[in-house]
């Protein structure tokens, strides 16, 4: 099979290539010309049949009868698969996996029993020659259910609240330092507020999709995934086959945002049907099906209590999160975890509690923890600043910790104050209306708000291969994914710089599980982890080239001292001599050379508290008659280590900031507590910001050196943009109107009743 997913720049030779330069995406031309094929579009030698999933119309209960006769007889239908005839799969298992990593790899069977665990859970897969035939036949399946009452309201008086054993990513459920209750009771200035955040849905532009093909016992899946190893392991565990027999291919991904970290029903359905039929089968979730079947952010109530002295020094911080979870599989978004590192206070307590609902499980939606947690904490800080009569920036400066306040280790780097000061200057923060509701332009109330951003910096273990051929052409290979972030481009930049070759000499091949394994794209670690592996591979390769050049009998550089090797301008320089890599390799290694490098989380992750920081500033206008809240402009200033590519990084940041605007103003997946279904499950009714909602969003990076996380000095940025940005918008609305809305999203109906009439 010819590979059509090797990506190479089409830009002119001589364009800036170095790490830190705003290089154009090397996959850009493929994408804008439609040559980058996404999962569902992949072409195989054999025609793939089309599968369509039919979802349950109840949220809890069981299937009593399922009549597939009419569907089976419908034109073009090849297979109707239900729990009665689906191949046997591994059992789902307990609600909590024994270890943290297993949540990513556990078996996730579909069509496995007559039990219905959530609304729209797959109950049948119809496979036909065309999509329309499959969808049309699905309508002919007749089902009779025994519906059971379920829990769909986390605020219900009889809600089952419990304490999980750990949060997502393995953080402790609770943290306690000092004596919060006493310090809070004694604090002269107090804040006690509850913030509610709704269910939210990721909805990447490319829905979840897969084409599965079997060759004997070997399964190949073309899908849209962030982390191929998880999909491979998840499929292997579900189908009870060896992971070696599963190949996952995902070269281009139309957005993931955490919704494509694990195997989902469409992929398992495709694999099962392809096995039964002995021919490739493709299945995609419809947009409507995404809402229940592709993860969501859980709904939460977050209580924040802050105690401070009259100078604004915090003495007590408490963050208590009560979140929805699924009865059959636990997910605990770690929303109070960022509070453990953001501000100093001697007495502190954070807690996570869960309420079991009969919905599907929540998943990792962009910045799990920070996105929701900072919406609460950073609004609370704004409220406290007002009580104290302090500028919100000054309050934060007064509570800047010298060391991580709960872990008692140093920060690897922390430039929050610099971000706030720089942002205040650029944004014109001094013009902020001091008194809420005091600035009016025509029928609009104008307000400014700010919030801090913090996002944990991780490194995911993995490796990468870098090869150089006899013409000096470089190929980078890894099972890493580019989910729209720019991974192809930055890996090419790293290899080009480390090997001293132009960008046009570097090809990048990603998204194939047969390539060296990485931790994929997730947790904002993709860039640091994979570029560290590429960097290390390049160092090894350089040594191989230099050694061979110094020792090979046909080498013009024979006998040179390799400690003086420099790779620049497409040449190897050894002392005063140099030779182009092409002509050198041709002589010393006609078959080329190859090296594998790896990245691993080092000791510094234990000995330092590692985070990226930032500050968001927003200006809003609120209509005095209708309460319509609209963003006017927004600025984010970030300190996130070394920025590998300011152009792709900027896109990440403004995308994240806009995500926060959506969370503040409009995003909400409504769960009907009577039926347990998500009501507004399409993009007409699930609102995300459109262009008109996000004028003037800008992001700035401050230079930052941080050598603790990885050799490139980079920190994760994929999620930093939506950490705190929603709170900046919420605080601006308060500043504009004097109306504090703690129930997100802040829609106009929560504002206008408090505004004057006339």
């Amino acid at each position, binding site marked *: 099979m010819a590979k059509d997913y090797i990506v190479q720049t089409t830009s002119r030779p001589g364009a800036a290539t170095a790490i830190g330069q705003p290089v154009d995406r090397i996959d850009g031309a493929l994408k804008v010309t439609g040559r980058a094929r996404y999962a569902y579009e992949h072409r195989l030698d054999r025609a793939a049949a089309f599968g369509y999933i039919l979802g349950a*119309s*109840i949220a809890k209960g069981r299937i009593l009868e399922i009549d597939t006769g009419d569907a089976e007889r419908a*034109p073009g239908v090849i297979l109707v698969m239900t729990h009665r005839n689906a191949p046997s799969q591994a059992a789902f298992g307990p609600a909590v996996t024994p270890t943290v990593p297993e949540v990513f790899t556990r078996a996730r069977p579909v069509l496995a029993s007559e039990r219905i665990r959530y609304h729209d859970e797959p109950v049948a897969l119809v496979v036909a020659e065309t999509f*329309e035939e499959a*969808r*049309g036949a699905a*309508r002919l399946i007749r089902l009779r259910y025994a519906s059971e009452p379920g829990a769909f309201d986390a605020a219900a008086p009889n809600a089952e609240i419990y304490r999980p054993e750990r949060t997502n990513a393995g953080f402790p459920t609770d943290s306690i330092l000092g004596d919060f209750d006493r310090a809070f009771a004694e604090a002269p200035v107090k804040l006690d507020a509850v913030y509610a955040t709704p269910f939210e849905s990721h909805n990447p532009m490319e829905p979840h999709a897969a084409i599965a093909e079997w060759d004997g016992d070997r399964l190949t899946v073309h899908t849209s995934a962030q982390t191929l190893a998880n999909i491979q392991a998840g499929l292997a565990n579900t189908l009870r086959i060896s992971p070696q027999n599963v190949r996952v291919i995902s070269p281009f991904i139309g957005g993931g945002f955490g919704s494509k970290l694990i195997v989902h029903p469409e992929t398992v359905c495709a694999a099962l049907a392809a096995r039964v039929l002995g021919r490739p089968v493709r299945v995609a979730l419809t947009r*409507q099906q995404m809402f229940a079947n592709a993860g969501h952010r859980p709904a939460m109530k977050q209580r924040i209590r802050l105690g401070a002295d009259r100078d604004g020094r915090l003495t007590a911080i408490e963050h208590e999160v009560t979140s929805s979870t699924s009865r059959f599989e636990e997910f605990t978004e770690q929303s109070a975890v960022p509070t453990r590192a953001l501000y100093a206070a001697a007495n502190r307590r954070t807690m996570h509690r869960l309420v079991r609902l009969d919905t599907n499980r929540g998943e990792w939606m962009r910045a799990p923890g920070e996105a929701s947690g900072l919406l609460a904490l950073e609004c609370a800080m704004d409220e406290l600043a007002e009580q104290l009569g302090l500028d919100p920036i000054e309050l934060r400066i007064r509570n800047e910790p010298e060391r991580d306040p709960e872990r008692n280790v140093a920060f690897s780097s922390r430039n929050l104050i610099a971000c706030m000061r720089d942002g205040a200057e650029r944004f014109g923060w001094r013009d902020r209306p001091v008194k809420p509701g005091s600035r009016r332009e025509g*029928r609009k109330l104008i307000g400014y708000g700010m919030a801090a951003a913090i996002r944990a910096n991780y490194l995911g273990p993995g490796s990468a291969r870098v090869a150089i051929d006899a013409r000096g052409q470089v190929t980078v290979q890894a099972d890493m994914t580019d989910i729209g972030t720019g991974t192809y481009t930055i890996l090419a930049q790293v290899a080009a710089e480390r090997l001293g070759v132009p960008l046009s000499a570097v090809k990048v091949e990603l998204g194939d599980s047969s390539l060296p394994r990485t931790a994929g794209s997730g947790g904002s670690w993709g860039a640091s982890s994979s570029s560290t592996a590429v960097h290390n591979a390049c160092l090894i390769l350089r040594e191989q080239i230099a050694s061979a050049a110094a020792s090979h009998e046909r080498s013009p550089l024979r006998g040179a001292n390799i400690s003086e090797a420099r790779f620049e301008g497409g040449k190897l320089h050894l002392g005063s001599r140099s030779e182009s890599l092409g002509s050198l390799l041709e002589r010393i290694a006609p078959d080329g050379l190859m090296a594998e490098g790896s990245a691993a989380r080092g000791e510094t992750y234990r000995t330092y508290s590692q985070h990226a920081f930032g500050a968001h500033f927003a200006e809003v206008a609120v209509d005095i*008659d*209708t*309460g*319509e809240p*609209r963003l006017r402009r927004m600025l984010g200033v970030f300190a996130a280590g070394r920025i590998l590519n300011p152009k792709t990084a900027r896109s990440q940041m403004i995308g994240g900031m806009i995500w926060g605007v959506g969370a503040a*103003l*409009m995003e909400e997946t*409504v769960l*009907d507590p*009577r*039926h347990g*279904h998500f*009501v*507004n*499950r*399409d993009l*007409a*009714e699930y*609102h995300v*910001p*459109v*262009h*008109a*909602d996000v004028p003037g969003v800008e992001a700035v990076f401050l230079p930052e050196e941080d050598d603790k996380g990885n050799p490139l000095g980079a920190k994760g940025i994929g999620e930093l943009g939506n950490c705190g940005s929603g709170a900046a918008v919420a605080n601006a609305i308060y500043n504009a109107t004097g109306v504090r809305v703690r129930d997100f999203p802040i*829609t*106009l*109906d929560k504002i*206008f*009743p408090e505004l004057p*009439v*006339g």
Partner: protein
Amino acid sequence: MKPFTYERAAGLREAAAAVAARPGTKFIAGGTNLIDLMKLEIEQPIHLVDINRLPLRLIEETPEGGLRIGAQVPNSDLAADMRVRRRYPLLSQALLSGASAQLRNKASTAGNLLQRTRCPYFYERGMPCNKRDPGSGCSARGGFNRLHAILGASEACIAVHPSDMAVAMTALDARVETIQSDGRTRAFPLGELHRLPGTTPHIETTLAAGEMITAVILPPPPPGRQLYRKVRDRASYAFALVSVAAIVDVAAGRIRSARIAMGGVAPKPWHSAEGERALAGRAAGDEICAAAADAALSGARAEGHAAFKIELARRTLRRTLAEAAQDV
């Protein structure tokens, strides 16, 4: 999607006859609403009659000084027409506040009038909906009904009509021209096109089987200042929570006449004669606008999440009327 057959209509009368001849036949024009509903199998026509090539794409002057808008004029073209922009700015504003540029390029004038509700329960096939499955019940009552009606609803249905264009046309006192399967034509006020749900929310218009809208007639532009104000949850590409079309004619500080219609609040574009009467002949000013808004909403009631819309509509009306009543 259920399999269906398709034909391209040869003429106006033939189109109407073809739809009248077989139950389950529908016209298709821009398809921006029908095709979505067919994919979800909420609409399940067995036969489609494509009317896109019928000669209904002209905007013509009428002898009376108004405009005759062909049923197939795309929303984009109508909004951009200089005669519309100069003489009926309200209509242009309303059109441009609806949908997206891509949808407006495809959506036709008559199709816009006949688009169906966005009630999420109408879209949820597994749930009762009297509009989709007559007699099955209304899931929106007692459910998530923030987007629902405060005027003209019934026990059986609280869904709203989603059009902006139709609200502006209602304020402009537009008439609808149709042709029936036997070739007869008729024209009637737009206000008589949509029915209130009563006990039969699945019957949405007064059109006979096969009766096809051929044009919308705008009377000569009424005197006064025209304004369309749409209130929604995001700045673009969202249906109205409340919209107001207002035309107020003021001379020497006195309101000579007013036209008021509202969108997003009722099962049909809502014409408020009460509001108009409250304004006519009165001295212009904020108080009279407030009184007119109160009059327009005197019959409003809401259950559940839509309760806020009554006050929102009142505030939006008051402000829009006050702006329209300003002497220019």
